[in-house]
């Protein structure tokens, strides 16, 4: 076979497209990824908005002018524990010295930054930075993580680490905490981060790089549960619970949701309790939706506590299940008379106005907003093709007084309107929020 024959053979090989390249499959995959990206951006934006997000911590470490002098400036573990309001599992992990002391220093335009400690499990990593911060109000963003052994970029979700607001005190150095969620454990990690001046809305240091090593990975503990339960006629099965040092994964199968475009179960949240304290959803890992596989009926929920938290028997509880019947999923916005309705009639909880290029949908703070922070409608459906496309609303909330008004502003240009001036929304928020009295015991000694 000569080179041209080989070339023809290769060209024929690529003509056979794999199933994974079928357009509906590609579209679904890409949309899912975009959705996850937007969820992560929301997390990041939320992190900017809240001074205290990941842990809300502030400790004065020392008054040294530069951290680069020596790693002796790294705060002692004891002081870290005293000063920082960690989640229960993290505190125990720190008490039991699950932390790895790093002590790497990076010199930046705004002073030295020390990566003091790191701790990680299969799903999370927490990094503790100390900095000779010259100005208050900086955020530290992790831009990229790379596995230092393979050179491969690590897919991750992060919340920014904020320098706490310390206007009353002359504290030059503070410890801050940055949370990372990832799909699997990485021992040797190269990190690139930037530091942002929140007030000036600009980066003050970029591409700051360092490499560090986490401790050896500890094994996960897996408990096969296979427990079925039913809520409002929908059946679920908890397949297994996997405990990592810092977090817990609950795998649930939605038994009646296989063939639906949108699941009738909007969300569910579990809790883990040792009898005294209860932990809930792991904020970052759950937001990142890292565990979603190809099987859309199998869901993984993450809890903010791992086996470092407690050696006692733990109680796994179901805090709530949110459901949305199919008949409530499709909502029509009629811009002729500014109304929203579904199969059952008008949606009276909303007021609609449209003003130029904007549709403003107003509601008082509803129950679902307490626990399900999302736009009320997440997609529009093309009336002719039935295809859905993603939409997002700008949210503005009213004064902090009851009843509090929430305004969701949709851009007209993003909304596919049919010839009758109707927009076909796909609803996000649940119709039912059920708080089942369901729990089961997990013996962590097994």
């Amino acid at each position: 076979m000569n080179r041209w024959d080989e070339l023809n053979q290769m060209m024929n090989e690529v003509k056979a497209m794999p199933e994974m390249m079928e357009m509906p499959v590609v579209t679904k995959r890409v949309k899912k990824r975009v959705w996850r990206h937007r969820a992560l951006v929301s997390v990041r934006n939320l992190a900017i908005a809240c001074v205290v997000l990941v842990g809300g911590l502030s400790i004065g470490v020392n008054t040294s002018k530069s951290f680069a002098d020596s790693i002796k400036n790294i705060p002692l573990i004891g002081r870290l524990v005293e000063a920082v309001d960690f989640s229960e599992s993290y505190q125990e992990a720190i008490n039991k010295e699950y932390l790895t002391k790093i002590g790497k220093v990076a010199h930046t335009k705004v002073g030295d930054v020390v990566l003091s400690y790191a701790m990680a499990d299969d799903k999370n990593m927490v990094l503790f930075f100390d900095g000779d911060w010259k100005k208050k109000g900086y955020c530290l963003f992790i831009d990229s993580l790379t596995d230092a052994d393979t050179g491969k970029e690590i897919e991750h979700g992060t919340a920014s680490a904020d320098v706490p607001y310390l206007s009353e005190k002359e504290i030059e150095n503070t410890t801050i905490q940055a949370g990372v969620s990832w799909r699997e454990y990485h021992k040797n990690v190269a990190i690139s981060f930037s530091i942002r001046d929140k007030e000036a809305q600009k980066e003050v240091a970029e591409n700051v790089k360092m490499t560090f090593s986490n401790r050896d990975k500890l094994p996960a503990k897996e408990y096969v549960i296979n427990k079925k339960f039913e809520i409002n006629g929908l059946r679920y099965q908890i397949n297994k619970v996997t405990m990592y040092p810092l977090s817990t994964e609950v795998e649930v199968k939605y038994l009646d949701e296989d063939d639906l475009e949108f699941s009738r179960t909007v969300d569910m949240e579990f809790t883990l309790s040792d009898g005294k304290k209860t932990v809930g959803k792991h904020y970052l890992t759950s937001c990142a939706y890292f565990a979603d596989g190809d099987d859309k009926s199998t869901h993984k929920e993450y809890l903010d506590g791992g086996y470092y938290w407690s050696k006692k028997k733990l109680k796994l509880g179901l805090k709530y299940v949110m459901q949305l019947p199919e008949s409530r999923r499709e909502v029509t916005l009629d811009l002729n008379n500014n109304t929203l309705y579904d199969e059952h009639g008008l949606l009276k909880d909303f007021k609609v106005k449209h003003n130029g290029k904007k549709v403003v949908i107003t509601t008082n703070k509803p129950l679902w907003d307490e626990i399900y922070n999302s736009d009320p409608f997440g997609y529009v459906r093309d009336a002719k093709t039935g295809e859905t496309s993603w939409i997002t609303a700008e949210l503005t909330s009213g004064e902090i007084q009851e009843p509090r008004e929430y305004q969701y502003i949709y851009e007209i240009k993003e909304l596919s309107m049919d010839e009758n001036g109707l927009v076909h929304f796909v609803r996000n928020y649940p119709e039912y929020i059920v708080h089942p009295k369901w729990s089961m015991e997990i013996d962590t000694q097994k």
Partner: protein
Amino acid sequence: MKDQEFFDRVESVRKKLYAIAYPYFNSESMAVDAVDEAIYKGYLKKKQLKQPQFFETWLVRILMNVCNTKYKHYKKQVGIEELPEDASPSEIENLPLKEALMKLPEKYRQVILLKFFGGYTIVEIAELTECPQGTVATRMRKALGLLRMELEEEEVA
């Protein structure tokens, strides 16, 4: 550009995208991964595309960047050493074409893949790679020379 229009346009070029990505890795899954990444990046940046008629050029450029980045990691992992630009054909003549392509210097490999797997002309490749046509034609000749593949002069031009 609306979502639907974006995905409609993707549909019309997806075969070409896959055909270009595949020879980088000779792996179906890695090619799918690269195409996904390119579409995803394109989706996030679709507002930056001011002239929809250049959609294909724009997306193929994104794909080439994605493939080149992924290929840099990939060749380190599997230990591929690219040939220097002044290499002689004897260094790869005994290799199967698939392997020989992977060893070509990046800019040579790029023109070969765009021409034979993307089906683009030299003029189009010049637009895609933002290089003068003469440079593309020279690279094409050198790449074919290294692979010991002769083309008629008008085919190269």
